């Protein structure tokens, strides 16, 4: 009896260690398999035999093969993967925009500088055709630089939109694979098996980690062994074996601005604002915070320089003697009819139109204009902040807000809304209007001078054009001092007396007639005259004003010049890029820590496995010896009996 028991114990040990050696070999072979968790054989004693009044041990048995892993640490790795991937992607795109804008040769700043240097060149030599030609070609360069910068940023946003599409299809495919594994794991668990399907579980965990590279996910384990995967604020991507697919749709009406939707049975549900983390989250953030902002900021600059330069140009006289025409073609903004599916505008609603009425108040925001049936409201796209719309007195249906004049359609119905992107495409659409160097209005229309025969020391200065379209702008006008404190103004061209007995103040008197304005002052004597006369082709009065636009602070409510505004953009994108790079580094190291913790629990250590191999081999050899001992015990017994 005893011999057979020993044989049984030896056999049970032999079989158990065989399985242990197999598991160790499996660990060794999967030492470099991604997502593999090392496995361990759990031994337990076989129930003892009752030998009279005590129990005798009856050998060893294998309870199961466990994978060594921590649910908690795994979830940490998944989170860290999503966050890291988000910042890596964000910084990668922000860096591209940053390198483009801040380049010392290819950015906007050098082109802007060369352009205004050429304006100075024209001011230095207003009748030189070559100086004017240089300004025209520098204008072309500037416009070209705007166009190219826009194009390059647009290429970035094209790649970005492409990657959004790729990510979405990767997410869908990973979700399907997870759902399939859910099915397999549930069926493996169902068939009265004690052990876990370790390799299927590893595989599913690896897929969840992979999914986290694309989007931030949360998993919830179910009692049947399946997991549910959620994105955003709890939108279910995978529930058991079912997958709700993500898709892209053009909700804002802007074809360059893809939105994310959940393709549910009930229709598309927009989720752009709630999907975060992963490369998809990083892409959406980079698009909204960097790419769109950069396009809008460039657009505002293009509109700013275009409108301001044209306005000053109109105040001057070109080489042919006519009022200056447009130098740039400033693009007209467009309204996009919103195609938001849940609030489709009626076809009879018409389109809201708007124009830029005050470039100084222009922001880089996009807006959404909506109608609730009685009132119109304007909100900043993205943040949703309400912008006050001031009705224009005397013209119903017109409102001003943030430098825009908006005309709402009279046929709108409740629920209609419109996307307004005032600055988005201006950098793309700005072109040169002037082609002929003679079109540059370098000369001021009139110049005022104190007559040399004056006996007093009165001065005339600061000539400005207020109304370039005034028909009498270039008339010759004489201001005659009728006493030391009064003066008359006569238009010599028409012979009309414009004013008599005007009060003169020696500290400076503003005189404004025929569309111009000037200041006279000083100690003028009775009988002194000041003559306002049309200028010739050698005058550079308006060119000096054009050159002064470089330093003029007319943007952002009169606080920033063109250069300031561009530097702000560069600094803004640069700061975002740097923050993203720092975040990317931080989260890379957090991911490394989490991975190393996960690996320290689940990873295979070959030295450990080597030791196990030796341990189990020795135990196996010992068990074999037990069998051989049992055999010799049996032989001894046989020999004794025979």
């Amino acid at each position, binding site marked *: 009896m005893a011999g057979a028991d020993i044989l049984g114990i030896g056999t049970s040990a032999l079989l158990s260690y065989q399985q242990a050696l197999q598991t160790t070999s499996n660990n060794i072979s999967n030492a470099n398999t991604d997502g593999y968790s090392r496995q361990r054989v759990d031994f337990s004693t076989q129930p003892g035999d009752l030998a009279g009044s005590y129990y005798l041990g009856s050998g060893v048995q294998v309870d199961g093969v466990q994978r060594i892993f921590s649910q908690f640490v795994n979830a940490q790795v998944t989170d860290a993967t999503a966050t890291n991937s988000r910042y890596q992607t964000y910084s990668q795109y922000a860096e591209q925009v940053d*390198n483009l804008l801040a380049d010392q040769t290819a950015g906007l700043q050098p082109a802007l500088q060369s352009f205004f240097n050429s304006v100075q060149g024209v001011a230095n030599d207003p009748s030189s055709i070559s100086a004017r030609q240089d300004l025209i070609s520098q204008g072309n360069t500037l416009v070209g630089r705007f166009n190219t910068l826009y194009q390059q940023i647009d290429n970035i946003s094209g790649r970005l939109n492409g990657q959004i599409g790729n990510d979405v299809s990767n997410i869908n495919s990973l979700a399907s694979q997870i759902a399939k594994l859910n099915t397999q794991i549930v069926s493996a668990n169902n068939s009265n098996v004690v052990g876990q399907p370790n390799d299927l579980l590893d595989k599913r965990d690896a897929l969840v980690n992979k999914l986290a590279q694309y989007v931030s996910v949360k998993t919830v384990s179910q009692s049947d062994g399946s997991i549910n995967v959620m994105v955003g604020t709890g939108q279910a991507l995978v529930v058991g074996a079912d997958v709700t697919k993500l898709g892209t749709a053009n909700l804002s009406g802007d074809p360059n601005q893809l939105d994310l939707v959940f393709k549910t049975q009930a229709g598309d549900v927009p989720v752009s604002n709630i999907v975060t983390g992963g490369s998809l989250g990083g892409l959406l953030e980079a698009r909204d915070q960097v790419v769109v902002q950069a396009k809008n900021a460039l657009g505002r600059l293009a509109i700013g320089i275009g409108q301001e330069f044209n306005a000053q140009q109109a105040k001057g006289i070109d080489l042919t003697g006519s009022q200056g025409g447009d130098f740039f073609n400033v693009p007209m903004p467009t309204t996009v009819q919103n195609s938001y599916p849940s609030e489709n505008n009626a076809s009879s609603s018409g389109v809201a139109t708007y124009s830029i009425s005050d470039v100084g108040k222009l922001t880089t925001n996009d807006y959404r204009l909506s109608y609730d049936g009685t009132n119109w409201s304007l909100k900043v796209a993205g943040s949703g902040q309400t912008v006050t719309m001031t009705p224009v007195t005397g013209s119903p249906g017109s409102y001003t807000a943030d430098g825009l004049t908006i005309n709402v359609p009279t046929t709108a119905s409740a629920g209609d809304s419109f996307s307004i992107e005032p600055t988005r495409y201006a950098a793309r659409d700005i072109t040169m209007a002037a082609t002929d160097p003679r079109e540059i209005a370098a000369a001021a229309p009139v110049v005022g001078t104190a007559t040399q025969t004056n006996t007093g020391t009165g001065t005339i200065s600061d000539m400005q054009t207020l109304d370039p379209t005034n028909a009498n702008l270039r008339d010759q006008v004489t201001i005659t001092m009728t006493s030391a404190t009064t003066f008359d103004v006569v238009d010599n061209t028409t012979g009309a007396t414009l004013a008599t007995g005007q009060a003169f103040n020696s500290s400076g008197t503003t005189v404004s007639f025929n569309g111009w304005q000037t200041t006279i002052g000083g100690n003028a004597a009775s009988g002194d005259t000041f003559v306002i006369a049309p200028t010739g082709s050698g005058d550079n009065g308006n060119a000096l004003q054009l050159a002064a636009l470089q330093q003029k602070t007319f943007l952002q409510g009169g606080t920033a010049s063109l250069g300031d505004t561009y530097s702000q953009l*560069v600094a803004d994108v640069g700061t975002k890029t740097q923050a993203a790079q720092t975040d990317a580094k931080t989260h890379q190291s957090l991911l490394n820590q989490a991975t190393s913790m996960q690996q320290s629990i689940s990873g295979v250590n070959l030295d450990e496995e080597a030791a196990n191999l030796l341990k189990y081999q020795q135990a196996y050899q010992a068990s074999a010896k037990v069998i051989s001992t049992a055999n010799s015990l049996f032989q001894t017994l046989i020999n004794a009996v025979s």
Partner: protein
Amino acid sequence: MRLSTAEISQTSISAILDQQSQLNHTQQQLSTGRRIVTPADDPAGAAQALNLQAAIDTNTQLQKNGDAATARLNLEQSTLTQVQNVVQRVRTLTIEANNGTQTNESRSSIASELSQSLKSLLSLGNTRDSNGEYIFAGSQTTTQPFTQTPTNTFVYAGDSAQRFLQIDSSRQVATNDPGSSVFMQITNGNGTFIATPAAANTGSGIIDPGSVTNSSAYTGDTYSIQFTAANTYDVMDTTTGTTVLSNQTYQSDSSISFAGIQTSISGTPATGDTFTVAPSGRQSVFQTVQNIVDTLNTPTSSVASNTKLHNSINQQLSALDQALGNIINKQAGVGSRLTAISSQQSLQQDWGTQLKSAQSKIQDVDYASAISQYQLQLTGLEAAQKTYTQVQGLSLFKYL
């Protein structure tokens, strides 16, 4: 802590890759000489460097403006110097012609030389710059400013505009003087009043241009000195019609003073001769020279016509002096503007150097620290590589 074999390998590889990328960055810094290789290395610094570059470029452009202004003013200055020389020569010749030993013939030969001087003056007034622009035409730079009409009057076709150039962000400087102020609107007489003998005078009285001795007593009225006898004269204020002085005794070369005015008459005026003292008018320097030429070309045959000649030449000489004074004033003005530009430019040069050094501090690499960092990183990379091979060689399996 327990480590997995794959992790050990991964960690070492990551360390090596990290070291490599840092080394590459330092190497790029050293090879480009720039601390900021891409703007994201230091966004604030990059934006600042960009602003400084704009300031440097603006500074350079302002210096160029200064150069352009200097070139224009230098041309005006040298033209004015030539004008001054010609006027000086005209003055010398005129004084020579005024000498009593001159004959009608010698005067007329002086007159023909003066005609040439007049032509030079006109052509100097019509000077063009390298772009073919008239420098004394105000803003009408394509129109010839000065022309002589068939009746020997002189017309200015320019305007009184000045071209200003920006030589500093807040400072403009005029780079021309309109021809009207240089050549045309010059006061005649002594600058305040002009003393003229009546055309019908028969005596040999020659009146001095005179001067204002008491400017508060000077009224600006027109006065007439009338000889009631060969040695007696009255002074009338013809503006108000009142008599200022009466029955004064005349003495050749002795001063005649009234209403803040002092002048004198030499020679022997005849009874009934009159001399007028009127406020100065305006006369172009061309007209002055033309008047001298006309006077010298008029032959003299009597005491009266001789007297007229000297009186006339005296008058034109005063006008020439006024013209000369005006040109010297303009030259001084141009000179002071040139000085202002030159001091502005040297300020700008200093400022430019400061801007460049500020920019360099922000964007240029500090070689000493970059090289030591490079050495450090190189050592680090080598150490990482060496330990990697050693750690990878460790395995229990080796001993099985």
